[in-house]
């Protein structure tokens, strides 16, 4: 911080004895660590790109998949992701203000801004946890159809269009019907054909889904591996034995008009027309329902199955946002350590706040990676 620079001849500069980059060893190695980390993320994004370009199925569209907000109902496409991006940018600013305070040896400033950076990081992490949870649970689930067919569907402008669906196209349930069907399917898997009953009138599209009422008493065997089964939660476990003799009684899980959604997560562009989020009702929906590919249903997402479309979509979502989130977690932990060191006056005794600069470089890199994850995963 002397304000004037020292002139050195070129031979002397690269001849050893001083840093030709005019940067401390620690900061330089942090930069090269970030270069290697960028190569890792570059590899992930490359894999994502090559797989996405290589698939013939349509790839899910960001705003149709990510359109929920915590505590609110309704459709808010991409708003939550935009908020997360905003939080990360703000935490980058607070971090760079901490670095700037460190240059002035302003301990109070460093503690304040670094503390706010930690808060921003925690906010981002909890947002990501919520988004993962929402992604994993899904919103109703869906199935693939067995054979190609043409179907009349209504779009959000109430326009009815004939759609050509290829074999393997995804069809989705509205949330309530989806939960009922998921529960029914669990029963069938556990108990075979007597585990449930479906009545579908193909001329009106009236649908009834029933499962045996005695089910809740079978207890443990059924609970395994179905921890997110919403229906099981409302079972009144206190009355087990009293119900044991009502074996033939049926619980109605769903009774109403069948309605299905086509192109819920994808946008198909044909004949100058965008086909997305098309609703199918009545007999047309019954045709789709009866064309269900065996074993193709998916509810939410995991590493082997997901309702959004190609399996690689969910896998890349988990891996790329997960790897980024892991970086944020590391950043938050190191930030907390450096914050405590600043409070205890370690850097003041040391005479400089270079540690804040180094962790700052890492933190900005994490923000930078998010800029590209946001661009390639959500926007494009």
């Amino acid at each position: 911080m002397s304000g004037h620079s020292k002139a050195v001849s070129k031979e002397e500069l690269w001849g050893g004895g001083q840093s030709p980059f005019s940067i401390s060893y620690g900061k330089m190695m942090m930069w090269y660590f970030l270069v290697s980390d960028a190569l890792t993320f570059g590899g992930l994004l490359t894999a994502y790109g090559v797989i996405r370009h290589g698939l013939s199925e349509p790839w899910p569209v960001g705003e149709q998949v990510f359109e929920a907000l915590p505590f609110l109902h309704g459709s808010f496409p991409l708003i939550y992701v935009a908020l997360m991006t905003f939080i990360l940018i703000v935490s980058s600013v607070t971090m760079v203000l901490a670095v700037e305070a460190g240059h002035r040896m302003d301990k109070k400033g460093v503690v304040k801004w670094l503390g706010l950076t930690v808060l921003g990081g925690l906010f981002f992490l909890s947002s990501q946890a919520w988004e993962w949870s929402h992604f994993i649970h899904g919103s109703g689930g869906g199935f693939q159809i067995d054979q190609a067919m043409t179907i009349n569907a209504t779009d959000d402008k109430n326009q009815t269009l004939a759609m050509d669906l290829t074999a393997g196209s995804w069809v989705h349930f509205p949330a309530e019907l989806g939960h009922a069907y998921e529960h029914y399917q669990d029963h069938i898997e556990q108990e075979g054909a007597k585990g449930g009953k479906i009545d579908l009138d193909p001329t009106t599209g009236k649908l009834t889904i029933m499962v045996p009422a005695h089910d809740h008493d079978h207890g443990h065997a059924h609970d395994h591996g179905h921890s997110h089964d919403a229906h099981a939660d409302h079972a009144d476990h206190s009355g087990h034995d009293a119900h044991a003799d009502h074996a033939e009684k049926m619980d109605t899980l769903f009774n109403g008009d069948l309605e299905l959604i086509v192109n819920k997560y994808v946008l198909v562009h044909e004949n100058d027309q965008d086909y997305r989020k098309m609703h199918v009702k009545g007999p047309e929906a019954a045709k789709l329902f009866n064309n269900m590919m065996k074993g193709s249903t998916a509810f939410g997402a995991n590493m082997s199955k997901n309702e959004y479309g190609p399996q690689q979509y969910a896998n890349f979502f988990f891996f790329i946002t997960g790897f980024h989130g892991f970086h944020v977690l590391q950043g938050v932990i190191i930030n907390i350590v450096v914050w405590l060191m600043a409070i205890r006056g370690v850097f003041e005794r040391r005479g400089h706040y270079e540690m804040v600069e180094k962790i700052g470089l890492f933190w900005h890199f994490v923000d930078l990676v998010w800029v590209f994850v946001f661009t390639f995963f959500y926007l494009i």
Partner: protein
Amino acid sequence: MEHTEHLEHTETPSDMKSQIWKTFWILLGFTVVDIFLYFVLLSTHAMWKNWVFIILGIIKAYYIVGVFMHMKFERKTLMYTIIIPMLFVIFFVALMLIEGDFTNLLRWIK
């Protein structure tokens, strides 16, 4: 002076604070533009649309790396050792996207 280098020109500029806030507003502005354009271009199905978002991302990256990570004020030699490997990454991504298109073509032929 032609054969000499100034060792200590990596100092923080005196108006760093105002530069930081200026950069913040720029980044915020570009993020809002990103989202806005996304919805404006929703029913556009052309290749240039992707380039719009990629270029906006690169502009944001420039400000984060340049100002927040202080790269603008570091020595050029350091900058090149970091930027040049990243150019190879971009080259690799471009190659692999072309490869992906060929995979898709082969699926279609089958």
